[in-house]
């Protein structure tokens, strides 16, 4: 489809939708309530923002430190998720193996698991006395709790499923005939992956990375439970908001505002994928 044709189709779409919409008119009321319910808290946040002192709040060492750490940890979590999650998504989408559904269920479990429970589970697995952790400690002298690596691990645990399921969906939706054609022309597996498959699933991969990163950035429960709370080491933005809320409401609002704008940024970046006709 050419760009012009796509634009034409886009413009035509609303008219068709209007003619066919048989939505009860009274739906407008609960729908408006839903929008209000979702939007009013954001208005509340903006309304209480101390705009006069926000510059000072945003550049205070505490905020900058939390922001830097949040960027480091969420990027680290995305790196771990891409390195391990993308191959997993390929296996789930392409290879029939026994227990595949079980593996998929396990993979998505952290999405529905309360993050605090995830944190406890991580402690029992990777803590100093944990299943894997005690071995790591004995063999290498590595302990993960209370370290930045631990915070990255906690965030990756919670965020990786978002990447895996998005990439898997992209792989399933893609037209495999392009790969078949490449194979007939003599391309090897790695060449096909690099030159055909990855470019074709690039939008899914991008969306998966963005979702995964946003989830990692917002991670709270698993992080504070597993990695603890120390400024500059494990105190990421959400933890700093939570601690600040108890003593300094203005600082908490300023930090919340940063997270709000970052989240909005992710949404805007994803708009073509999620709101293709808007």
């Amino acid at each position, binding site marked *: 489809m050419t760009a012009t044709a796509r634009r034409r189709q886009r413009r035509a779409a609303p008219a068709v939708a209007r003619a066919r919409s048989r939505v009860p008119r009274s739906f407008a009321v609960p729908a408006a309530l839903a929008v209000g319910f979702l939007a009013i808290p954001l208005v509340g946040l903006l309304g209480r923002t101390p705009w006069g002192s926000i510059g000072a709040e945003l550049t205070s060492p505490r905020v900058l430190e939390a922001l830097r750490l949040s960027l480091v940890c969420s990027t680290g979590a995305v790196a771990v998720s891409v390195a391990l999650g993308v191959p997993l998504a390929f296996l789930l989408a392409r290879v029939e193996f026994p227990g595949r559904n079980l593996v998929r269920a396990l993979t998505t479990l952290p999405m529905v698991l309360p993050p605090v429970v995830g944190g406890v589970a991580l402690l029992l697995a990777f803590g100093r006395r944990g299943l894997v952790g005690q071995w790591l400690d004995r063999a290498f002298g590595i302990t993960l709790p209370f370290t930045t690596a631990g915070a990255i691990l906690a965030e990756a645990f919670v965020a990786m499923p978002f990447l895996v399921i998005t990439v898997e969906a992209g792989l399933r939706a893609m037209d495999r005939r392009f790969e078949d054609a490449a194979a007939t022309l003599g391309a090897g597996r790695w060449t096909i992956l690099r030159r055909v498959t990855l470019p074709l699933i690039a939008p899914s991969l991008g969306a998966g990375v963005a979702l995964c990163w946003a989830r990692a950035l917002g991670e709270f429960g698993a992080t504070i439970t597993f990695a603890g709370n120390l400024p500059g*080491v494990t105190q990421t933005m959400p933890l700093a908001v939570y601690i600040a809320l108890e003593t300094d409401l203005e600082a908490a609002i300023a930090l919340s505002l940063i997270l709000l704008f970052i989240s909005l940024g992710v949404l805007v970046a994803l708009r073509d994928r999620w709101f293709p006709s808007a």
Partner: protein
Amino acid sequence: MFRSRIRLAAVLAVVALALAGCGGDDEPSGGSTATPGELKVFAAASLTAAFTEIGEQFTSANGTKVTFNFAGSQALATQIQQAAPADVFASADIANMDKVTDLVGTPQNFASNQLQIVVEKGNPKNVQGLDDLANPDLKVVLAAAEVPAGKYAAESLAKAGVTVKPVSEEDNVKAVVTKVSLGEADAGIVYVTDVTAGGDKVQGVEIPEELNVLATYPIATVKASKAQDQAQAFMDQVLGAEGQQVLKQHGFLPPPTT
């Protein structure tokens, strides 16, 4: 018919929303005649075990159900400032009670507490006192400076002239005990009562009197409460002989006499 019913429901929803929106303005700030069968007590995390027991006594004596919100006193004070529905507030320090002084009745001190070093059972790292906590090989967890227990610990360490680099600053004092009992941390500074409540996975190391801090616990009724009578009754229960006995059993000291 069906559509009009939806419309009615929607109108009701809007009215309910509007009413809820302006509810906060005209709430009575004093004694009300309502007699709800439930009392909400916001209490410092260190009071968890003792207050749960006092709450059971109170319920069996008065028939009023008590629900607790246990957290760091600083978190509770913030919640009360944001108009959380509390009837009674028990803080682990005077400072957080002072933060809500306009929102509560006259506070009364009902207990005091002292600090101890909490270590794993058997004290595998052989911690003998505050000086040992400066050892960089030791993983020390403290409560955050915002938490009363963290503030007291800092005072005690300052008295001893010891600088500690904690691996984590936990959000409430119970989390410190948890990290030690899980074996993640080697030592922490908590209240004597938390070591008692921590069970058989942890033990305490005494901090000498001259380096210790006396934490004073005040309790007060919340002015916005609609159950003033029950709130006062609960406060009396805590201050009375029965409540004091429970607190003593859990390792609390009597309130300072001054």
